[in-house]
């Protein structure tokens, strides 16, 4: 994965309600320093001189308390703990609540090559937002070959060998009113340990499809913005394969699953044969997934009803054969 620098943190394009509002106020050359994890440290203990277990590889957050203590140190001209802090390779120092350090602090930061940033957000709010943003950046990810579409609100990841018809299936789904997230290359990221979010690889190439015989088409231009989406949770994994007469395909509605990046997702294997309508099978699968989420397990219910019916049939037989039981 590409290295994530402090400059990348400032440049993160986040929506209004999760924006970080970061500005660099010193140590500009240090913006190339790398952030390697989503940890946050508030260096109160460090400033007071306690360096055991100092989390120097996290970003250092200066909230109101830390700034007040720093101010006291500056007043007393005691900069030894600050100097010692800067001997560690810390990624950056961030002042919240719109605060800023004194001149000497900035000099020491610049000398050690550490960038100094500030944000107008309160430290509590900032900590929550930056943790979310960094967790996103460092989430385990992988890129796979497949198509991600949203069908009736369900994120369906369609995979299969080249030429089996993934793109054409997706094209028909789009024409029926569903949404394309990405064709051909889907970037999957595991968020919060149990969610798999799929998106396109980059914004320039997203929402284009390659169709044999047509070439590359721009879905947004042809079908409109309601036919596309930037990212979607993957809730169903569909594997298209050429019909293999030797293979046993699911006839009852069993529960096959697949694990990707530690997240378990329901999986379907759908055989493709000329004349078979694959898009409608996928639509039905998506609707079935929704039903399951609501608690209706069609296949299980069906079997329970069959059992009840068989039981009542055998009770009838018993009734008619034993005339002396009543």
């Amino acid at each position, binding site marked *: *994965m*590409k290295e994530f620098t402090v400059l990348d943190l400032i440049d993160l394009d986040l929506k209004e309600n999760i924006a970080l509002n970061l500005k660099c106020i010193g140590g500009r050359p240090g913006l190339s320093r790398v952030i390697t994890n989503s940890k946050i440290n508030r260096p109160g203990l460090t400033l007071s001189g306690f360096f055991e277990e100092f989390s120097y590889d996290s970003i250092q957050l200066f909230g109101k308390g830390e700034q007040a203590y720093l101010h006291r140190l500056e007043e007393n001209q005691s900069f030894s703990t600050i100097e010692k802090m800067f001997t560690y390779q810390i990624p950056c120092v961030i002042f919240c609540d719109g605060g800023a350090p004194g001149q000497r602090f900035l000099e020491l930061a610049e000398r050690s090559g550490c960038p100094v940033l500030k944000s107008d957000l309160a430290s509590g709010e900032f900590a929550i937002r930056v943790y979310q943003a960094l967790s996103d950046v460092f989430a385990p990810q992988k*890129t796979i*070959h497949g198509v991600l579409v949203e069908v009736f609100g369900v994120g369906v990841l369609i995979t299969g060998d*080249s*030429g089996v018809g993934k793109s054409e299936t997706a094209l028909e789904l789009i024409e029926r009113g569903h949404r394309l997230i990405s*064709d*051909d*290359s889907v970037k999957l990221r595991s968020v919060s340990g149990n969610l798999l979010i799929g998106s396109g*690889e*980059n914004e320039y*190439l997203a929402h*284009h*499809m*390659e169709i044999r015989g047509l070439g*590359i088409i721009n879905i947004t231009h042809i079908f409109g913005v309601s036919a596309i989406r930037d990212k979607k949770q993957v809730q169903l994994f569909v594997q298209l394969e050429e019909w293999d007469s030797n293979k046993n395909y699911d006839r009852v509605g069993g529960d096959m699953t697949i694990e990707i990046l530690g997240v378990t997702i329901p999986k379907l294997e759908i055989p493709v044969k000329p004349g078979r309508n694959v898009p409608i099978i996928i639509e039905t699968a998506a609707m079935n997934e929704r039903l399951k989420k609501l608690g209706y397990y069609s296949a299980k219910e069906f079997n329970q009803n069959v059992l009840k019916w068989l039981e009542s049939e055998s009770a009838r037989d018993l009734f008619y054969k034993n005339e002396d039981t009543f």
Partner: protein
Amino acid sequence: MVEKVVTVKNRAGIHARPAALIVKTANRYSSNLYIEKDDMRINGKSIMGIITLGASYKTELKIITEGKDEQEAADAIEQLFVTRFEGE
């Protein structure tokens, strides 16, 4: 499985025309073709996948072929890079 490392010698990088040439060549062989850049691996038989790699001038790529005709496939793809995608 056959692996080869190639370098992009075109100034413009791998844009639509070179990508189409790779796909055309790859589809002549039954083997699977994967192209790797850093830690990203894409299916070499699809144009969108190749373009998504964002392989610019001087980028190093790894060609991986798997299948019956893997050696011929790998050689053919390597040739494309060597000849800078000029001509068929």
